[in-house]
């Protein structure tokens, strides 16, 4: 079949409108030396040939590895019903629900997703989602600057370094004065954070559990910040919220996070799901779509986009954000996942993650010359100090069929021998045991 959906006659017609005699003439502005010499395209292939070629490529992925990688993105079990629901064409092909009379299903799904996020975070309002955890954090940072009219932002060193990199990239051309404070014993360094707060500070950005998997009750930081008119942004791991104190309970102003854990596959980095929730007081400063529940002229329940005056199709360059889309289908998956698990199911998943990670900790701790960092409590991820370079050890573990964790040297200079290990409910006791045995074996044979 032809992949170009127009006929020769149509091409001729379009060229005539453009005033060009041929396609070559249409592109004549491109200098000869910059024009591609050849597109090296294969001749047309049959469906079978394409299938064979693509499955050959796909089989080169190391998808068979037993996964202990985390770092903000986790391999959780996804019930088959999530795929079945998200694959329904009513959801799968739907676009922006500007017209409520045509989009009640999508709008209701987003509204229910927002309710899920509010319940998970104990916050008052959630938006319809953002691209991913990093974008959500960037938007939260911008929101705090807008709300306080102050230029300085304190960033805790325990915030995911990938998010931090995104934050600095997005804001490279804005004059925001970022101040990073390294963690102390794996937790937010109170002394340094408090010393850094001044009347130019808009917000403090925290994460719980932080990048090292460490659980931290940031109540004291929130109280100190609020006394100085400073907002607190906390990025959270949604699964952990089933067991830990949610941001709303400690008075956090803006809660964000990566929603991938809620029914989305890892898929080489996306598409993911950024969530953001805040207080009613700050709702008009919040970027992105917001779905509200209302009643129509006949008193029937209906769902509509609301508070749209903040958005760029109305407010142009003064909008709360110029990333004007959301991840509706990913949000739908998160909603399906949470609905299928329910409150108790999610608590069970979180408890399994916690218990299995602690079993893994004990097993890894028993390996000679390996040290588990234990100065602070952790959820399902923990830091291990190896006798050798962690990236080297990881390479050897991959050969043995394990993705053993995230070598921290990549983002934390000086931590080359540290490995960040994550355990989800998917790992069995047997897998954890053989992970520890294989690591011991690998380290013995270097």
């Amino acid at each position: 079949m032809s992949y170009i959906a127009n006929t020769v006659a149509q091409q001729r017609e379009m060229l005539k409108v453009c005033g060009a005699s041929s396609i070559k003439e249409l592109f004549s502005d491109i200098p000869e030396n910059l024009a591609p010499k050849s597109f090296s395209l294969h001749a047309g292939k049959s469906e079978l040939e394409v299938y064979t070629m693509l499955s050959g490529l796909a089989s080169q992925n190391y998808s068979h590895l037993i996964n202990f990688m985390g770092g903000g993105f986790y391999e959780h079990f996804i019930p088959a019903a999530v795929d079945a629901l998200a694959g329904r064409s009513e959801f799968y092909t739907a676009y922006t629900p500007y017209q409520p009379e045509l989009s009640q299903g999508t709008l209701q799904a987003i509204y229910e997703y927002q309710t899920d996020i509010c319940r998970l975070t104990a916050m008052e309002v959630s938006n319809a989602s953002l691209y991913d955890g990093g974008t959500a954090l960037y938007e939260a940072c911008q929101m705090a600057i807008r709300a306080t009219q102050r230029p300085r932002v304190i960033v805790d060193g325990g915030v995911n370094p990938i998010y931090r990199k995104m934050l600095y990239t997005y804001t490279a051309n804005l004059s925001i004065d970022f101040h990073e404070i390294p963690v102390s014993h794996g937790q937010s360094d109170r002394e340094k954070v408090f010393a850094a707060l001044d009347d130019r500070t808009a917000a403090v950005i925290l994460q719980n559990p932080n990048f090292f998997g460490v659980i931290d009750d940031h109540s004291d930081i929130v109280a100190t910040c609020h006394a100085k008119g400073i907002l607190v942004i906390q990025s959270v791991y949604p699964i952990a919220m089933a067991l830990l104190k949610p941001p709303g309970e400690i008075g956090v102003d803006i809660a964000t996070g990566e929603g991938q854990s809620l029914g989305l596959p890892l898929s080489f980095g996306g598409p993911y799901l950024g969530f953001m929730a805040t207080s009613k007081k700050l709702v008009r400063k919040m970027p992105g779509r917001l779905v509200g529940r209302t009643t129509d002229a006949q008193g029937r329940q209906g769902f509509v986009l609301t508070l749209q005056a903040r958005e760029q199709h109305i407010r142009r360059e003064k909008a709360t954000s110029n990333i004007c889309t959301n991840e509706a289908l990913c949000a739908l998956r998160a909603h399906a996942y949470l609905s299928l698990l329910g409150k108790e199911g999610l608590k069970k998943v979180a408890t399994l993650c916690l218990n299995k990670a602690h079993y893994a900790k004990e097993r890894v701790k028993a390996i000679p010359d390996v040290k588990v960092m234990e100065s602070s409590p952790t959820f399902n991820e923990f830091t291990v100090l190896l006798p050798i370079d962690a990236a080297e050890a990881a390479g050897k573990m991959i050969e043995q069929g394990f993705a053993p964790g995230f070598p921290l040297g990549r983002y934390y200079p000086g931590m080359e021998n540290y490995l960040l290990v994550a355990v989800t409910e998917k790992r069995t006791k047997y897998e954890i045991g053989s992970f520890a045995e294989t690591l011991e074996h690998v380290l013995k044979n270097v």
Partner: protein
Amino acid sequence: MSKSPSPGDRKFTKTHEWVKIEGGKAIVGISGHAQEALGDITFIELPAIGKKVNKAESCSVIESVKAASDIYAPVSGEIAEVNTSLETAPEVINKDPYQRGWLFSIKNFDAADVSGLMDAAAYDAFVESEK
């Protein structure tokens, strides 16, 4: 559409704010024409008391069912008072833009800023010319 002329006891900006000098303060609101163009007003974000404002710079936001619009300070000075009753009843701006719908007042302003603004007749002519 027949419209009553704008009140003669105040001055107007091209961005549709009005100013009335009373007790050494410049009281600021939006014109009858502006509230009509905005439609039903649903929310107002008022400036903080004590905030220094500069003439023609945005210092407040009014949100209506149609749009969110900036309110520009007609004169430079310092915010003295804000009409907090609008936070719960922003529709008063539609109902009574020149009296109960005032937005904020500015103190320590420069009298020269005021004399540069349009009077009611000039403002009505300006609105007419914009149509």
